[in-house]
C-alpha cells in the first residue's frame, strides 16, 4: 500500500521525490545549540524556525529553542534590518542569552539582507555577542548549514591573539550528542586536552530533572571558541561537515587542521586514535586495545551472518561513508551509497572506498540523490539489508528488507541520540544491531523445522 514507486526508471531532471537532505538553516540551528547559553536565531519567516524546532524535537525528543525574525510582507519588500534589530533587543531583554547566533534563510538571502552590516551597526549590550552565518536554503543541505554555522562562530570569535595553549580543536561534524560524548571519552583516554565545537551533549540529550532550563548545562563556551585561536591544531571530523570550520580557523588564526573521516568502524577509528597518539605523544591505552579486541572478536563470531550480504546505505555524506567502511569490514557488500547532499566529492570518496575493498563492480554511489531513486534501484536489484534514517521505513516495508536505523533523522525510535556510532564502542553497537536485524529476519522467515536455537 505504501509502495507507489514504479520499477521502471524514467529520466527525471527536475522533480525531487522523497529527499535525503533538508535545508541549511536547520543544520545551523543544531550547531548553534552546541554553544553554551546561545540563542539560535532564524532570520526569515516564522514558519522556518517552527519547522526546524519541530524537526529537531522529533529526532532528539528534546526541546529545541530558537527565535525568529518573523518576516512580514513589509520586511520582505524593505529588508529585514528592522526585524533583526528588534529581534536582538527582544531576545536579550526576554531570554537573556550570552550570545545570539543568527542564520539566514532563502527569504533573507534572496532579498539581499546584509547581515554583516546589520550586526556592525546594531546596539549590542557590552557583555553580549551577536554572530551570524549565511545559510541560503537553495545551496547544499543541512550538513552545509552546520558547517557554515561552526565556521561563523570561528570567524567572529576565534582569537588569533589568544595565548598558545596545549589544546586541540575538535570539530565533531554533524553527529549525535552520543557520538560527541564518545569522542570526548576517547580524547580523555588519550590524554589530550581539547576544545569541542560544537558540543550538544547535555543540551540535546539533557537529563530529566524536573526543571526546565532554556539554556541547559552544556555547550562550548565563548571563551573556548576564542581560545581555538591559540590551539595547537584542530581535528576536523567528517570532510563534508568540518572542512569549512577548518578553513575558517586557518584563515582567521593560522591554526592548521587535519581533516579526517568520522571514525566509524575499525580502520577509521584506528587512524583517528593514531592521529591522537601522534599529536599527544601518548600511546593508545590498554583499555582501547581491549575495546578494539572485543569489536574484532564480535565481527569474527558473527561473520557468517554478515559475509557477502548486499546492503544499501543512505543518509548524510560523512555518516554514509563511515557506515560503508564498517559494512565493508564486516563483510557486507554495499551496492548503493546515496546521500541527498550535493557534491561530487562524495561519489569520489565512496567509489574509492568500495574500490579499496574490491567491491566497486556494479555498485552505485550517488550524491544529490533521493530515496525514490534508491527505491527504484532496489526494486531492480534487491538488497539483503538497508541502513539509514527513519525515512527508509516505508521502502524497507515495501521491499521486505531488514532495516537498521542510523543517522539523522531518526523520527520513529527512541534513544538514538544517546548511542554513539563512532569509535570501537559505536561499531560494536552497530554490528550487534546489524546482526540482530539480519538474524531476526532469518528466524521470522524460516520454516519451523529450520528454526535454530543456537546460531
Amino acid at each position, binding site marked *: 500500500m505504501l509502495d507507489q514507486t514504479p520499477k521502471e526508471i524514467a529520466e527525471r531532471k527536475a522533480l525531487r521525490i522523497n529527499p535525503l537532505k533538508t535545508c541549511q538553516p536547520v543544520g545551523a540551528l543544531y550547531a548553534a545549540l552546541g554553544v553554551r547559553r546561545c540563542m539560535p536565531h532564524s532570520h526569515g519567516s516564522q514558519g522556518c524556525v517552527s519547522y526546524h524546532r519541530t524537526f529537531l*524535537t522529533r529526532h532528539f525528543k528534546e526541546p529545541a529553542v530558537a527565535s525568529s525574525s*518573523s518576516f512580514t510582507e513589509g520586511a520582505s519588500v524593505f529588508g529585514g534590518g528592522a526585524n533583526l534589530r528588534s529581534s536582538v533587543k527582544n531576545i536579550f531583554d526576554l531570554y537573556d542569552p550570552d550570545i545570539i547566533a543568527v542564520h539566514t534563510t532563502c527569504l533573507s538571502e534572496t532579498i539581499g539582507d546584509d547581515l554583516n552590516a546589520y550586526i556592525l551597526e546594531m546596539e549590542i549590550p557590552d557583555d553580549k555577542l551577536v554572530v551570524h552565518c549565511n545559510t541560503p536554503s537553495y*545551496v547544499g543541505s543541512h550538513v552545509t548549514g552546520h558547517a557554515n554555522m561552526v565556521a561563523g562562530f570561528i570567524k567572529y570569535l576565534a582569537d588569533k591573539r589568544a595565548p598558545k595553549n596545549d589544546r586541540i580543536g575538535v570539530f565533531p561534524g554533524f553527529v549525535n550528542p552520543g557520538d560527541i560524548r564518545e569522542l570526548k571519552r576517547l580524547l580523555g583516554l588519550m590524554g589530550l586536552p581539547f576544545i569541542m565545537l560544537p558540543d550538544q551533549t547535555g543540551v540535546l540529550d*539533557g537529563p530529566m530533572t524536573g526543571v526546565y532550563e532554556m539554556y541547559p548545562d552544556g555547550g562550548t563556551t565563548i571563551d573556548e571558541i576564542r581560545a581555538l585561536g591559540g590551539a595547537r591544531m584542530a581535528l576536523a571530523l567528517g570532510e563534508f561537515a568540518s572542512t569549512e570550520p577548518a578553513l575558517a580557523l586557518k584563515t582567521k588564526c593560522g591554526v592548521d587542521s587535519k581533516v579526517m573521516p568520522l571514525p566509524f568502524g575499525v580502520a577509521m577509528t584506528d587512524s583517528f586514535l593514531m592521529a591522537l597518539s601522534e599529536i599527544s605523544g601518548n600511546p593508545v591505552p590498554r583499555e582501547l586495545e581491549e575495546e578494539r579486541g572485543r569489536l574484532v572478536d564480535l565481527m569474527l563470531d558473527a561473520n557468517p551472518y554478515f559475509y557477502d550480504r548486499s546492503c544499501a546505505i543512505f543518509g548524510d555524506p560523512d555518516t554514509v561513508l563511515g557506515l560503508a567502511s564498517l559494512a565493508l569490514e564486516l563483510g557486507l557488500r554495499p551496492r548503493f551509497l546515496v546521500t541527498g547532499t550535493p557534491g561530487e566529492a562524495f561519489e569520489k570518496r565512496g567509489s574509492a572506498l568500495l574500490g579499496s575493498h574490491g567491491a566497486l563492480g556494479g555498485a552505485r554511489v550517488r550524491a544529490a540523490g533521493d530515496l525514490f531513486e534508491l527505491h527504484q534501484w532496489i526494486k531492480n536489484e534487491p538488497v539483503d539489508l538497508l541502513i539509514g534514517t527513519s525515512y527508509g521505513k516505508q521502502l524497507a516495508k515495501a521491499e521486505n528488507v531488514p532495516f537498521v536505523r542510523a543517522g539523522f533523522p531518526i523520527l520513529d525510535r527512541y534513544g538514538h541520540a544517546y548511542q554513539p556510532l563512532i569509535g570501537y564502542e559505536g561499531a560494536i553497537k552497530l554490528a550487534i544491531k546489524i546482526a540482530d536485524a539480519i538474524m531476526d529476519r532469518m528466524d521470522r522467515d524460516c520454516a519451523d523445522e529450520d528454526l535454530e536455537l543456537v546460531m
Partner: protein
Amino acid sequence: MPDAILEERKGSIARKDGPGAGAAPVSCGKASVSGAVSQRACVFCGARVVLNPITDAFHLIHGPIGCASYTWDIRGSLASESELFRNSYSTDLTERDVVFGGLERLRAAVREIHLTHAPKLLFIYSTCLVGIIGDDVDSVCREAESLYGMRVINVKAPGFAGHKAMGYRLACEAIMKVISRRPAGSDRSPIPMAINVLGDYNLAGEAWIIENYFREMGVRVLTTFTGDSTYEKLMGSARASLNVVQCAGSMAYLARSMEETFGIPWVRVSFFGLADTANSLTKVADLLGDDGARQRAAALCQREIASASAGIEPYLPLLRGKKAAIFVGGGFKAISLMRQFRELGMGTVLVGTQTGTAEDYEVIEALSDPGTVILDDANPSELEAFMREKGADVLVGGVKERPLAFKLGVAFCDHNHERKAPLAGFSGAVNFTREINLSINSPVWGALRQRASLFDALPGQAGPAGPA
C-alpha cells in the same frame, strides 16, 4: 505576571476574573513579535496541512528543499486507498534557479509528474523564495491544465504573507477552485440526508469513526475535508444538504464559501468529548429535519455514552482534581477540551491557542474557572511560567510542547498530528482519558521523585517534581 513577558505580548495574555478582568478579549491574529520563540507556523504550513490529506492529489512544493522535507509524511492522516500523498515532491530549487527563475524547472517537474503518475489533481505550493523571485506560476498551471488535462492549482503560500490561519484560508480557496468547476450538464440537485464533514483530517482514523456514526443514523458523508478524501469525492461534495464543520479554525472559510456558491448551510460541531459528540450528532439530525435520523442518533448516543462511560469510569478516581493546561492550534478544539476535562472532574488552569479568534476567546473565557490564564500565540517561556505558577499536572499540545512539558515534570497528551489513538467520537473520549491517565500516572514520575532522596542533600540540586 511572570517577569519573562515582553511588553508587546501583554495584550495577548488574559486572566479570568484576575488582574485586568473584563478587558478586551485576548488580542489575537497579530503577527508574532520579532525575536520571540513563537510556537506558531507560517502561511505555507497552514495551507499544506489542510490540503495534504487529499490522498490522490499530487502536492508539489515549489521552492528550496526545506519546506518539502519538513512536511513529508508527518500529517498522521490515514488513507483507505492511495498513499500518494505521503510522498514528498518538490522542485528543490538551487542557486541557478534563484538567479534565472524557477519556471523552467517547475514546468519540467509538472511534465515528469504527468508522465509517471498522470494525477487528476496537482497542487503547486509556492513558498517564500518563489514569492520573492516572482515566478509566474499561474501561467504554468494554465499551460499544464490544457496540455495534460489535469487540474493544477497554484497555492501562493509564501511564509511571510501572514501566519498559519492565512494558509488555512488559501487552502480553502484552492479547494473552492477545484470543486467549483463542475462538468456542464452534471446533476446539481442537493442529495437529501447527505453531508460533508469539514475540518477533519482523519488523524488516527477519526473521520472513519465519525462517518460510521452518520452511517448508522442514515446520513451519508459525501466527503470529508480533507481526511481520506479523493479528487472524485471532492467533486461530488457540492451536492450536500449540510456542511458539518469540525475544525472551524481551518474550515469555516470553506463552509462560508460553499454556502455562498452552492447554497449549502453549515453548522459548527465538535466530536471531542461525550457531551459535544452527542450534541453534534443530534444537531445534525435536527438540521436535516429527519425524524428517523433523530431517533437513530438518540439510540446511538445512548448506547455509545453508556459504553464509553463504562470505559472512562475506572479512570475517574485517578484523575479527579488534576489540573490541565491546553495549548492547541484552534480555539474550538480548546473549548471542547475544556469541556472534556470537566467531564473527567479535572480543572483547566491555562488555555492557549495559535490561531483562536476573538469569538473563540470569549467562549473560552466564559467557560473558564476564575484565575484561568488565557494566552494567544504563546511561547515556551510563557507556557513554562504559567504552567509552573498554576501547578498544571498535564499539558495537551503538539510536538514542540511535549519535551517542554516533560522537562517541567508535567504529563503530556499529543492532540495534534502525532496522536496515535483516535481521540474523536465516543470511543475517542475513552482513548483520550486513557492517554491522560497513562501520562499523569506513569510510574516514571516515581523514578523522578525518587531522585530527590539521592541527590537533594547535595547543594545546587533542584527539588522533586512531577505530578503528585
